[in-house]
């Protein structure tokens, strides 16, 4: 195996072309072609019936709500909705589908030719990239395999596999971009911004809970590299990309890997690769059918879909505010500019800030915690800020405690630390860790006297009118009280003690 090329060198020598295939599991009550329930996390094989188990003689009937959802999704992505299309059978032998085919769409997708504009922050300010969308099509999800035997739990080396068909037949929408060029070194950020924007749109439409960690939003990233002026290179397709952060990391690591291969005079193989969260690397995966020959044909058990244009226009008129419009409105309400907004979006905390503001916290405070301390910790722990365990209500409570003078920012950070460590609510952490601003004058005066006695020369200076020297004493008091005092108050008490006025 050749060594990956460091990222800066890779994007200096090669131009990346990326393509993204995103699968969105719809949040319908029932499955796509049968009435089985769709709740996540049910006991294995308890949400199945003859249709989704592919038993002989069973017949599918389309879920009207799923068709409505996909049309709304297509419209929100600026697509055209076709006036007539059919479902198709994608034939393959793999135990994730008991029918030995997946009902999907082939040459007649229901929505085509859309686009999505995404913004990434650069050193020169925000930059907008238009990602063109080739198609949005309807299909059904597959069952879940667990590989048994062998050391790794992976398909390689497994002795056999176990299948749960609860997920088989849940409506799944696939959104495919055209190749995205001209992003250069920003390719990983553009990929992440696209998936983030897509997630926010789907959430706004209410068609899916779009949880990457539960698999209701999944992303495959295609990457190829070419030297400037050359034809596009051979692409790899990376699967198993299960978080927004991973989208960015997977594209970046593929660019580094392919650049290493090409620079060493090698050839990139067209293949499916798997992304590993732990290492941030991709490894070659299996191919479902060695020669990808799915023998698609129109699904004979389902009649065509012909959306009434008047109905489509009704759906278009009823679309919610686009996230970009929504953001502009929030920016105005919160009094922040493009750059601050883009920072929130790229940190993946906009929704969290919004929820926090809705919980009654001032916008500046909500932004400060999410984009500052909590993003910092999330990056350090390599998780999404929303997975830290801190809720908008927690921030609301901490801000209340700050407002009443019980906490300062430094102590508040310790409260969040406790919440993230699973020590309970803000109040429980405050109580258990004994975190509270020391406001008892007696205790503070004692600490001040101690500090003055330890630094008599400083005391003399302050008495002599050098008020700026007070900092040394205040610092000593803060240290002695482990930061639990209000520095302003300490300063006032100190000056009062020495009979000095500013």
């Amino acid at each position: 195996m050749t060594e990956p090329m460091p990222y800066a060198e890779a994007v200096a020598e090669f131009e990346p072309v990326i393509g993204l295939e995103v699968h969105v599991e719809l949040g319908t009550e029932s499955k796509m072609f049968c009435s089985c329930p769709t709740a996540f996390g049910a006991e294995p094989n308890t949400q199945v019936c003859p249709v989704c188990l592919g038993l002989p003689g069973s017949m599918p009937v389309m879920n009207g709500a799923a068709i409505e959802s996909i049309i709304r999704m297509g419209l929100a992505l600026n697509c055209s909705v076709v006036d007539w299309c059919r479902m198709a059978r994608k034939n393959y032998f793999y135990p994730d589908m008991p029918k030995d085919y997946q009902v999907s769409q082939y040459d007649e997708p229901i929505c085509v030719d859309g686009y999505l504009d995404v913004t990434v922050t650069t050193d020169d300010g925000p930059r907008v990239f238009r990602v063109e969308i080739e198609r949005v099509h309807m299909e059904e999800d597959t069952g879940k395999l667990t590989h048994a035997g062998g050391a790794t739990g992976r398909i390689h080396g497994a002795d056999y596999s176990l299948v749960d068909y609860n997920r088989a037949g849940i409506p799944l929408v696939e959104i495919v971009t055209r190749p995205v060029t001209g992003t250069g070194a920003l390719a990983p950020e553009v990929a992440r911004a696209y998936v983030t924007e897509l997630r926010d749109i789907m959430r706004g439409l209410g068609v899916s809970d779009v949880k990457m960690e539960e698999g209701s939003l999944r992303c495959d990233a295609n990457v190829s590299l070419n030297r400037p002026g050359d034809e596009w290179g051979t692409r790899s397709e990376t699967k198993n990309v299960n978080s927004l952060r991973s989208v960015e990391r997977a594209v970046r690591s593929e660019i580094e890997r392919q650049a290493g291969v090409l620079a060493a005079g090698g050839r990139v193989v067209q293949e499916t690769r798997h992304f590993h969260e732990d290492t941030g690397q991709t490894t070659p995966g299996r191919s479902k059918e060695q020669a990808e020959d799915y023998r698609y044909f129109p699904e004979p058990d389902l009649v065509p879909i012909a959306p009434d244009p008047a109905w489509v226009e009704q759906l278009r008129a009823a679309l919610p505010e686009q996230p970009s419009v929504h953001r502009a409105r929030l920016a105005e309400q919160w009094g922040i500019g493009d750059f601050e907004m883009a920072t929130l979006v790229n940190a993946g905390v906009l929704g969290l800030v919004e929820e926090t503001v809705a919980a009654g916290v001032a916008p500046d405070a909500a932004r400060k915690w999410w984009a500052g301390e909590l993003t910092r910790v999330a990056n350090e722990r390599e998780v999404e800020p929303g997975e830290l365990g801190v809720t908008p209500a927690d921030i609301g409570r901490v801000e209340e405690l700050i407002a009443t003078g019980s906490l300062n920012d430094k102590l508040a950070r310790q409260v969040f630390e406790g919440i993230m460590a699973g020590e309970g609510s803000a109040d429980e952490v405050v109580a258990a860790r004994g975190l509270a601003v020391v406001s008892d004058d007696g205790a503070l005066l004692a600490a001040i006297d101690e500090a003055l006695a330890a630094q008599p020369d400083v005391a003399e200076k302050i008495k002599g009118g050098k008020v700026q020297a007070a900092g040394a004493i205040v610092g000593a008091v803060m240290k002695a009280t482990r930061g639990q005092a209000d520095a302003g108050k300490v300063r006032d008490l100190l000056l009062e003690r020495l009979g000095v006025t500013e």
Partner: protein
Amino acid sequence: MSAITRGEVAHLARLARLALEESELDHYAEQLDVILTSVARVSEVAADDIPPTSHPLPLVNVMREDVARPGLTREAALAAAPAVEDDRFRVPRILDGDDE
């Protein structure tokens, strides 16, 4: 007119996981040839102004309400499975040793 080769029949058989004898390859090549020739004849008379027939009845948009109903019990779902483990269908090894 189309002429299906033995090689194409063998390829199709492999995709469909059918084990065909040598003699059957010729037999099916001949039959598939007849089918494709017949379809080609229909295509000849179907001009651009004739939409493809999806179904004998001109139906579109047959949809059901999005209402969940219980399906099979797990016991019933797994009853006919050749092998079961941990309430899941147990299937043989998917990849052969040399498969990549």
